[in-house]
C-alpha cells in the first residue's frame, strides 16, 4: 500500500452509518468536522490538553484530536450534535443552560461530552469527583464553578432526584 492510499472507514455517528474514504493520518476531529460537517466538535489546543474536541467513542469520552479516524472504524461516535435536540435537550445540556455552565461557549461541547462520559462511569459523583473528572477540559471563562454545579445538577436529574436539592449542586 502506498502511503497516500486511502482506506474505507465505516462509523456510526450520532446513530447514522457513515462510510468514507480517508487517509490513515486523518484525525477523528477532522473527520467529524471536515468530512461530515459536524462542527460542534471544536479543536482548541490540538495537543490533547484542552478537551474541546471530546466526543464519545463507543460510549467513552475521548479526545478526538488524538484518535485517528481509522482507529474508530466500526465503532460508534456521539458528538454534541447527537446529544439532544432543540426542545429536547439532554439533561447535561439543560443543566449547563440552567446553571450557566458556560460563558463564551467554545469549550462547552467538549465539556458536556466529558461530563456525559463521567456520569456514565460514575452516575453519582461528589463535587470533588466532578472536578477530577473534568481535569481533561480547559475553560478560560467560567472558573469552573458553574460547570461543576451544572454537572452536579445533571447527575441529580439523571438519577431522578430533585435537581437543586442534591448536595453537590449547592456547593
Amino acid at each position: 500500500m502506498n502511503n497516500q492510499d486511502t482506506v474505507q472507514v465505516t462509523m456510526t455517528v450520532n446513530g447514522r452509518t457513515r462510510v468514507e474514504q480517508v487517509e490513515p493520518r486523518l484525525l477523528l476531529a477532522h473527520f467529524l468536522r471536515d468530512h461530515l460537517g459536524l462542527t460542534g466538535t471544536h479543536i482548541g489546543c490540538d495537543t490533547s490538553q484542552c478537551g474541546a474536541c471530546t466526543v464519545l467513542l463507543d460510549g467513552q469520552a475521548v479526545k478526538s484530536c488524538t484518535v485517528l479516524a481509522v482507529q474508530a472504524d466500526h465503532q460508534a461516535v456521539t458528538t454534541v450534535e447527537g446529544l439532544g435536540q432543540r426542545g429536547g435537550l439532554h439533561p447535561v445540556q439543560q443543566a449547563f443552560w440552567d446553571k450557566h455552565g458556560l460563558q463564551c461557549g467554545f469549550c462547552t461541547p467538549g465539556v458536556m461530552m466529558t461530563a456525559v462520559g463521567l456520569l456514565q462511569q460514575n452516575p453519582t459523583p461528589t463535587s470533588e469527583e466532578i472536578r477530577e473528572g473534568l481535569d481533561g477540559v480547559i475553560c478560560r471563562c467560567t472558573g469552573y464553578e458553574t460547570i461543576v454545579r451544572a454537572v452536579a445538577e445533571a447527575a441529580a436529574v439523571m438519577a431522578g432526584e430533585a435537581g437543586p436539592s442534591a448536595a453537590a449542586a449547592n456547593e
Partner: protein
Amino acid sequence: MIPASFSYRRAESLDDALRWLAEDPQGSKLVAGGHSLLPLMKMRLAAPRRLIDIARVSELIGIREQSGAIVIGAGTVHRDLAGHPDVRQKLPALAEAAGKIGDLQVRNRGTIGGSLSHADPSADLPAALMALAATVDIAGPAGERSLAVEEMMVAPLVTGLAPDEVLVRVRVPIPAAGSRSVYLKHPHPASGYALAGVAVAVTLEPAGAVTAARVAVTGAGVVPFRATDAETVLIGDRLTPARIAEAAKAAAAAGEFAGDALMSAEYRRQLCRVYVERAISALVD
C-alpha cells in the same frame, strides 16, 4: 497539526503484528490507544512509514489472575486497570498510579503496554510496577522473553524492547499476606505529569517488623528508578520516623537528577526525599 503520511494495518492477532513488524521493524510503529505516539506524530517528532494497530487484538487485552500473579494484557486501558477489583485490593499502588494518569479521556484510551513502550521518564506506571516487582513478557521473532520493569526503562524514551518485538503482557506477583503498597504523586500543576511519583511496597509481620520492601521513584529523576539503598534501610525492625527519614535520604542519594527549565537538580532531589518519606509514612498505622 497533522501527522506525516503513513500506511495503516489493523492486526487481528499477535501473529499479524509480529509478522508485519518483521517486514519493516525500523519503519513501523505499533499503536493501541495512541496517546503517546499520536502526539509525537502530530508534532512530527515521529514519522513512521507504517502503523500497525493492535488495539483490537483480544489476546492482548484484559486482567486475570494466574499462578500467583495478576496478569495484565498490554492493551489494557488505564481506566480498566484503575477500576479492577483485584488490582485495587491486591495491588493498591498500581490502581492508584493508573487512576492518576493524565485525565479521564486519556485513561479511556491509553494502555499499560503503550505507556511502558514509550518510557516517558515522568510516567506514573513504572514506579508502581517496579515497587510491585512486575515483569513484562515480550514476544519477538525468536519467541517470548521476560524483562523486569527496571530493565525496560533504559533511558528517557528508550526501552529494552527491540524494534521487532511486541510487549504482550505485564505480570505482577500477588504480594504476600501482610503486604501494603502506595503511590504518592506530586503532579505538575498544568500538565499533571509526575514531578515526583513514589511507589512503596512493604511486607509487615503482625508485630510490624518489615520483611520485604521496595521503593521506586518516577518523574523526579532522569529515569524512573528503584531505590535499593532505601529498601535495605527499611527491612528489619518496625518502621519508625527516624528510619523512614533515613530511607528517604538514601532514596534521594540513589537517584540521578538533572535540572531543567522547571526546576534545578537539587530541587528534584529534595522533592524525591520528601515524597519518599511521605509515601513510606502513609503505610504505617
